[in-house]
Structure formats: structure tokens, C-alpha cells
């Protein structure tokens, strides 16, 4: 039994970071597409799932960029993030735009919108302000009910 646990831990250690690899970083080969490997099999996937659950893997926001680089010259927001979990994470987000005084601009476009990030994948959110006076933003998220 003890040796089985040691074997599982070793498999897991070997398996971390050894997912199916693509020759181009921009192309993400999902597990199960390129066949099983030492690092990618039913045992290691199950153990990794438990570790992910324990470590609270999920959505991570990497960057938020605001500019006016669209054809209309309206403020727009790009949020880049990634899902550290191996499972698809579904959530809702709402972007509220703020004026120069930091007050929320009341707009019908600020509503809860759905987002889905596949496991171990990056995602991007784009939002366009419907008022030119928007200078800043705040974004809220919540679970997909």
C-alpha cells in the first residue's frame, strides 16, 4: 500500500507540467488529444484533480488594458486571464464604467454577461464603453448560477 502511494506521488511529480505539447505555444493541445503518457493518464489526472481542488485552482486575471483604439474612439477594456484548473470554469462578469469624478455611469450596457474559460486555457474579455466620458472601470464577477 505504502509503495503504491509512493508510486502515485512519483507519477504525479513526473506528470506536473508534462501535458500534451504542441510545437507552437499559441496552439493548445488539450489532454486526451495526443494520447496517454506517463504524465497524463487516469491515475495522475485524478490525483491532479484532487490537488487542484485542495489548492483552489481557478480563474486568474493577468492583465487589464484600457484604451480608445477602436474606430469610434470610445473607451474599451481588454481583460486577459487564464484558468488554472483543468475543468471549464463558467462565471458571470459585469463591467461598470466610471467618469472623471469616479462615479459610476448609469448605462443599460452594464449588465451581467456570461463567460466560459476552458480548463488550463487563457481567456479574454472585451468590453466597450457606450459613453465617451468613461475614464476608468470596475469589474465584478460572480458564479454562474
Amino acid at each position, binding site marked *: 500500500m505504502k509503495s503504491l502511494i509512493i508510486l502515485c506521488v512519483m507519477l504525479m511529480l513526473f506528470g506536473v507540467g508534462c501535458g500534451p505539447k504542441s510545437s507552437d505555444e499559441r496552439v493548445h493541445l488539450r489532454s486526451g488529444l495526443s494520447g496517454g503518457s506517463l504524465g497524463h493518464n487516469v491515475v495522475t489526472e485524478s490525483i491532479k484533480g484532487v490537488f487542484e481542488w485542495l489548492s483552489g485552482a481557478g480563474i486568474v486575471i493577468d492583465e487589464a488594458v484600457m484604451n480608445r483604439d477602436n474606430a*469610434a474612439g470610445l473607451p474599451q477594456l481588454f481583460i486577459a486571464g487564464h484558468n488554472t484548473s483543468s475543468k471549464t470554469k463558467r462565471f458571470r462578469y459585469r463591467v461598470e464604467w466610471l467618469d472623471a469624478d469616479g462615479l459610476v455611469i448609469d448605462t*443599460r450596457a452594464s449588465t451581467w454577461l456570461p463567460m466560459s474559460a476552458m480548463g488550463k486555457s487563457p481567456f479574454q474579455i472585451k468590453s466597450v464603453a457606450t459613453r465617451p466620458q468613461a475614464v476608468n472601470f470596475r469589474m465584478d464577477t460572480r458564479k454562474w448560477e
Partner: protein
Amino acid sequence: MNSRLLQIIALASIVTGGCGGSKPTNIDIVNDEGKSVMALDYRDFDKAASEMVQSMLGSGALKKKDGGRYVVATGRIVNDTMQRIDTDQLMAKVEEELMNSGQVVMTSAVGSGTDQLIHESRELRESEEFDQNTVAKRGTLIAPELSISGKIFQRNLRYDSKNQQVEYYFQLKLSDATSGLRYWQKESLIGKRGSNKSVAW
């Protein structure tokens, strides 16, 4: 005496507790965490309108080169779903946001948003009862430069023996009223899966 009073209160609470359904409550429309329904609800219209408006404004199709505002009319929005939908549920939100963007002025003279009084007031030109200086003159209405038209339609699919899939498509198009050229269009899809017992109309 006290025990008698307690008995009456307990009896009253049992009797009233068993009567009627749950108490009506107001929906928190800002942060509604209620379950989805198979039919279209206000959250679906909010989502579709938000996506449409952001896409239309962000495309630059409404940005006038001289900095002025386009005159826009709402054309026909077809409801091709099995539900009784007032398409203003979508268009009122879209029009409101377009006008508040400062890039557009909507017209009530033509299109589906026509204000009949604008035309009725012009019939007063012959009336001696009205001061003719206050009656709208000929050739004062402004014609629309752009028109928005669209469609909402629904597809019902059998998902498995117990569940159905309902797809709602929101489509809007923005066209130049003079040339007929289309400058922008978008489709927003809302899909729902649920029990066959749920009615989607």
C-alpha cells in the same frame, strides 16, 4: 390564561402557514441570482442588448466624420419566436444606449417607433381652431440616414428523451437609408436546455 393564548397563537400560525403559496417578492434586477427559465426573460434581453450596443458603437459605424450625429430610425423587428414578445423589450434598451452615446439621434417620424401625434399634428394645418404659426410647417421633418432592422427567432430541438434545447437568435442590421448599404450586423445567441415539461412559449 397564558397557555390558552399560546394555544390560539400556535393554532393560528398552523392554519395560516398552510394557506396560499410563497409570498411575492421583488426581483433584485441588479444582481438577480434566480434560476434561468426556458422562455426569454429580462436577463436575456439585457444580455442581447448589451452585446449589440457594444458591438455597434465599437465598430465605428455610427461615428460621423464631421462629428455630428446620425439620424436613425428603427425599422421592422420581426418576432419569429413562439412567445408573445414586444420587440421594444430589446429595441428600447438599444435605442436608449445609442442616444446616450451622443453619436445618434433617433427619429419618431418614421419606422416602428413612430409617434402618431407627429403626423396628426400636421393635419391641423387646415383647422381654424389652431394658431397656424404654432402648427408644424411643411418640409420640417428630418429623414433618417440610417435604419436598424432585425429579427428574433427560436429553434426548439429534442436534446434527449427528457430534455429539450431551445435556441434564441437575436439579429440586428444597420443600413444606410440612402444607398441601402449595410454597415453593421450582429447575431447574439442564447441557448437553453431543460426539461421537456418546461414550456418555452
